[in-house]
């Protein structure tokens, strides 16, 4: 595992441990999750106990110690989305990908996450794939939306 990227990220924050939450987010962006070795490196470089790094890495819901898929699907369970069909939308995605909330497909293509609110409530229900927002979703649109990303991979 190449950890020079971790060092670079810490450099960007001038080795300040107060930026730990941001540092871990950037490391995750690079590795797609937080590998144990990277966490150890962060602790070493910031000169803080590994337990503190673990404490932060497990406290915040966007940080993941598990390997995630290539595309991250975030289904919004904000109040507006909840009222306008979140449950059906999530269930349909689960059905199509044959995974549960929080899991990754066998081919490592998709990870399904449920998030508190994407802040696009007017377009409820909403889901986002790799940060791109899809509004006014319904169960019938799920397959076509997922296909956009499946095709990307085939190319």
């Amino acid at each position, binding site marked *: 595992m190449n950890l020079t990227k971790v060092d670079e990220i810490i450099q960007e924050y001038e080795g300040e441990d107060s930026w730990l939450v941001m540092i871990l987010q950037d490391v995750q962006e690079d590795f797609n999750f937080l590998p144990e070795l990277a966490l150890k490196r962060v602790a070493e470089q910031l000169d803080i106990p590994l337990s503190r790094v673990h404490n932060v890495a497990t406290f915040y819901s966007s940080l993941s110690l598990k390997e995630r898929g290539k595309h991250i699907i975030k289904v919004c369970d904000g109040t507006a989305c909840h009222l306008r069909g979140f449950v059906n939308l999530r269930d349909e995605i689960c059905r199509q990908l044959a995974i549960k909330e929080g899991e990754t497909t066998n081919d490592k293509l998709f990870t399904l996450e449920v998030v508190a*609110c994407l802040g696009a409530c007017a377009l409820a229900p909403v889901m986002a794939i790799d940060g791109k927002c899809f509004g006014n979703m319904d169960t019938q649109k799920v397959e076509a939306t997922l296909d956009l990303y499946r095709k990307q991979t085939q190319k």
Partner: protein
Amino acid sequence: MIKSIQELSKRQAKAQKEYYCDKVRISVGAGTCGLANGAGEVLETISDEVDKQGLDFLVRQTGCVGFCEGEPIVDVMIPGLPRVFYRDISPRKARELVQAIAQRDFRSEWALARLDKDNLLVELERDVSGKLNGLAKVPALHELPFYKQQAKIALRNCGFIDPHNIEEYLASGGYSALAKVLSSMEAEEIIDSVENAGLRGRGGGGFLTARKWRSCRKADGYPKYVLCNGDEGDPGAFMDRSIMEGNPHSVLEGMTIGAYAIGADRGYIYVRLEYPLAVENLRIAIRQAKEYGLLGENILGTDFSFDVKISRGAGAFVCGESTALMASLEGLSGEPRAKHIHTAEKGLFKKPTNLNNVETWANVPVIINKGWQWYSKIGSDNNKGTKVFSVVGKVKNTGLVEVPMGISLRQIIYDICGGVPDKRQFKGVQTGGPSGGCLPEKLLDLPVDFDGLTEAGSMMGSGGMIVMDDRSCVVEIARYFTEFLTKESCGKCTACREGVREMLELLDKITIGQGSTEDIELLEELCCYVRDNSICGLGKSAPNPTLSTLKYFRDEYEAHVVEHKCPAGVCRELTKFEIEAETCIACGRCIKACPVEAITGEKKVAHEIIQEKCIKCGACRDTCPVDAVVTL
């Protein structure tokens, strides 16, 4: 680099001239909602068509004007003519619109509204009333029911200026307030103005802003910190996102004024992770403000310096709580602490700290510019100024609405937002997110302000307003918020960690039909315990959704436990759908909508649900055009 206050006014005048130049300007609302609705493609198409036709048009992107229902929204400004807003512009329409505008044809059939007077910008007015040129049939923006009762202070300029270009903020009189305080106001005078204006924190608690500033100013210690809470964790609220995306400089200017009054030289903006565009736009704004000498060392040539950094949250609702937010900024897990030591004295890094939310900061420059006398005339007693609400859920015109405080729920939901769609019945409105409550129809005339809502058992919160119709189950909504809070409780105090989880268990039991009348009583008792024994605001207010629904919708709880029925047809274990043969028009829509192929039927034959296959998702009911799907 702008080195003096005189130079700033020159730059503003120049920027205004450029903003209202002699060219046609087309802007696309490219906030998160706009982009999710295809604004990116619309913007590309417009640029492409302008190039193709060799037109000398300016193409810009702006933030959101708040009318989310009409996204993507495009506005066109032709010199000397009213500004025209268009709704639901697809790439195909966009291309046609460019061609039409080139011929001076307004395509008024696509127009949402026209704006004769650009007085929405704080400092400047452009009046072209009377020059209608075929636009007579297009309503004026201020006459639209959606905008008629609105008063834009915090959302001023959102959707009107390009957030990526500081020049446009200057054109709207931006940074005048900062110049005013640096050149002619003492710190105490600024705090007095904010106090007299009656500004209360827009993040939820409604604490007097000036009082916080004053205690932080008086506190001993160096450095002092000024923070902006952009964590906006309440699901259903997105006004802070809209401000950060659409008018980031208003937040920076407000913070800089606050820092000057408090005597701070550094600050942070804490933005939640789910708002990447807000982070990007704030980054650009900070960079530009520094280049212009409006942030950083020796602002506007004075000896006042202030620097701001952005920090991203990592997905923890509790970090909207002030002490948890500070813990997160220190690189720790976001656990709140008891507040017997005030953060004004010992906050971030144990130094004097002042925290206000995005909307509060955005109000500050206007109070300084227009004066507290002007500001304090807006709103009701003890609740001065405006508040932005995000009105969403089962309502016709979803969007961001900024109204003077004290206006009634009915005015917001019915007059401005058009009421409940699809001829459904209004059931209730949830305000204040997971810390707030659910109010019934009989309270629709309640004045909406900090005090009114708290008295009714709900709260203002950050301003989320979620409208529910007769197909929304209030028990399920209470369960939903309680589940949310179970996940988001940081686990530090027992009352919240264990209590909220026990509440969820009872609510779960009730929604699957296994609850009893005793469970409802136990639930109520537990709610009071959690409310009275939790450390921080999250736990103290966690029972609000349950307590308020118990107070106003007890019959619905009873229907769940006594009759084992969910009146709204939402709780799956208590619901059975059937198609009324005599009402069914055999259109086939429900067959297509059913995700599990549980509906049979063909043309001219009434459809039928196969109960063994049905998963009670209600997709058939939502799609049926004649309400033939009923619950038993």
